[in-house]
């Protein structure tokens, strides 16, 4: 034993060992097309898939009209729908059976039925009842469409009142109260703006956990772990060394994801990019440690990967506020979301992306995210045992 070696190994983490492990792990990934695909191609595919498919906006809803009134008044009313981008007329008909058939076959999602006495009611100042039939099998779209139809009805009503008042009083009249909508941070209410930050979180969580889920198990399965633990290598050195390459890969993924959001999906990044990447690094450490811990505990690759996928993907997708707003969840489920780390990360990402806010507002989310990452890292160290049993 020479002195230099003695010193290097007694003072905590040996940089030489960490470097040796990180370099070896990098080589493994670069030589294995499966892990390369998982590390680089899958994230891009997932972002494209989610970005295009998971569009929660409703536009050009196929609409069928049954105008039983057939008067100038009813045509005015129908024209209002045609003028909006939300509805596209696919057909007209003159009975309810045709409506049922069109909705059954999916040709139309909405049917607007104007009763025979529409013009009479309007002109007599009585209540005119419009029937709107919505295909409720797609609840989300159905709900949105119902809202749109009501809005159109209100516009028609307003126009009518104003016209009447003008005819009666002569001069120009305005409504006593007028509601003007303005959606802050996302003026067009594009769901993509909301989705892209969420996708980045999901992709990072899942990919990071799966990437590291095999790293320890594989060595146990191949028998290389037994050789490795006969050396003076320490737990922390193995954890840091093995996580480093995946951290670099994960960070590359985040960069690609942010770039794709910017240039493919046109999602503007309003806030501080440095803060975004810092928070992403914290989140990444937690996610990588989660996969590592699972790998160290289970010692078999197939099982570890499945558990990593299940334990990260579903909670992150369903309980992080990515698709379903946490505020709308039942109390019990809402309590569970506090244990879904992506919840904090998504809140931070949306804050940075859309509101351009910083830690002064989001410090609590950032604190919880950091605590989680620290906890998982500590757990990864604890669960890696350099012993046989």
């Amino acid at each position: 034993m020479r002195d230099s070696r003695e010193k290097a190994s007694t003072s905590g983490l040996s940089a030489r060992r960490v470097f040796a492990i990180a370099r070896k792990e990098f080589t493994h990934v670069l030589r294995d097309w499966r892990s390369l695909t998982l590390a680089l191609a899958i994230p891009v595919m997932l972002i494209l898939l989610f970005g295009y498919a998971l569009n929660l906006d409703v536009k050009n809803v196929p609409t069928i009209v049954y105008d039983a009134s057939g008067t100038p008044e009813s045509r005015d009313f129908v024209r209002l729908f045609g003028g909006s981008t939300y509805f596209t007329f696919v057909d007209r008909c003159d009975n309810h059976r045709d409506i049922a058939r069109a909705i059954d076959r999916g040709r139309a999602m909405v049917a607007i039925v104007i009763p025979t006495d529409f013009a009479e009611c309007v002109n007599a100042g009585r209540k005119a009842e419009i029937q709107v039939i919505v295909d409720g099998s797609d609840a989300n779209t159905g709900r949105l469409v119902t809202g749109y139809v009501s809005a159109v009805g209100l516009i028609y009503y307003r126009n009518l009142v104003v016209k009447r008042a003008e005819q009666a009083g002569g001069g120009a009249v305005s409504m006593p109260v007028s509601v003007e909508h303005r959606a802050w941070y996302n003026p067009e209410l594009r769901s993509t703006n909301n989705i892209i930050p969420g996708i980045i979180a999901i992709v990072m969580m899942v990919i990071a956990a799966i990437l590291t889920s095999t790293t320890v198990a594989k060595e146990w399965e191949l028998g290389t772990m037994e050789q490795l633990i006969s050396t003076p290598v320490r737990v922390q050195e193995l954890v840091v060394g093995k996580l480093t390459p995946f951290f670099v890969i994960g960070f590359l993924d985040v960069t690609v994801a942010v770039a794709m959001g910017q240039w493919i999906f046109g999602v503007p990044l309003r806030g501080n990019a440095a803060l975004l990447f810092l928070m992403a690094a914290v989140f990444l450490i937690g996610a990588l440690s989660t996969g590592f811990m699972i790998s160290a505990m289970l010692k078999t690759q197939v099982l570890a990967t499945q558990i990593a996928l299940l334990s990260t993907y579903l909670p992150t997708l369903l309980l992080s506020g990515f698709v379903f707003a946490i505020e709308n969840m039942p109390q019990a489920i809402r309590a569970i979301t506090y244990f879904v780390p992506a919840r904090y990360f998504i809140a931070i990402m949306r804050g940075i992306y859309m509101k351009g806010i910083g830690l002064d507002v989001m410090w609590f989310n950032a604190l919880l995210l950091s605590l989680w990452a620290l906890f998982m890292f500590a757990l990864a160290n604890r669960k890696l045992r350099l012993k046989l049993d």
Partner: protein
Amino acid sequence: MKTESTDIAVSVSGLTRKFGNFVAVDNVSFDVRKGEIFGFIGPNGAGKSTTIRMLCGLLMPTSGEGRVAGYDISREQEKIKKQIGYMSQKFSLYADLTVEENINFYGGIYGLKASELKARGEWVIEMAGLTDHRRSLTGILSGGWKQRLALGCAILHEPPIIFLDEPTSGVDPISRRAFWDLIYEMSARGVTVFVTTHYMDEAEYCDRIALIYRGLVIALGTPQELKTERMSDEILDVRCENPHDAMDEIEELACVKDVALFGSGLHVVTPDASLAETEVASLLNEKGYGFDAIGRISPSLEDVFVSLIEEADSENDGGGTMREARDA
């Protein structure tokens, strides 16, 4: 504290390891002197690997004590790991890394400086005969190459004690011989070599051997000692026609303990060689087996082990396991 045992590299007393109800290593005690080639011989499942893993600090003993390089195997594993090189039974280098990458990895793990690593790495490549394959992926190398490279990686840091767990299993005879030359070389430089094997010819190469069977050390000594002192029975070498048929008949004789096919003849185990010699000869004549020669021979290690294992089995009221042990 180590004044009395300065020439002892490995010392074990009452070492026991249980897996549930199964006792893999049962109250084992022995000492290994510095610079010695110590062979741990026994059939598969006898407890060789379990013992070696405990000595390397990879596995905790259930009870008993052990010291390696003066350090306690239950408490000072980190210190032990700096003093040893270990080569596990399974090939344990990274198949998707090249020869050089494997060497560099283990060099880094053992904390070698760049200059040391360069020199030692070259030594390993030369020793393993991999000069033309330094950039080949390790997975495509033949068994002998892999095994020498694995040894090289395990001793990059020049440890004073080396543990080799069945290093030559699955390797061709030429490579096995070359591997043992390496072991001799290291032993000559004062390195202690602790090696397990189930090849009897390799047992002969060791300075001292311990025979382990069913978790128990049933014999310990130099190969010569075991052959002369531990063998109370004598061996007759019988060269006859149809040895396979003759074997059953000879086994019936009262003065014969055991008969085994050995090469083209038979080895007859007997407490009294001169008596057995005449009785076997008359039996073969009577039954019409022609024979070339019957003669007393000094027992081989294999004879010794088979007879010791049989003894152990009869003490344990077990039969039948002897043949399994010999096949293994």
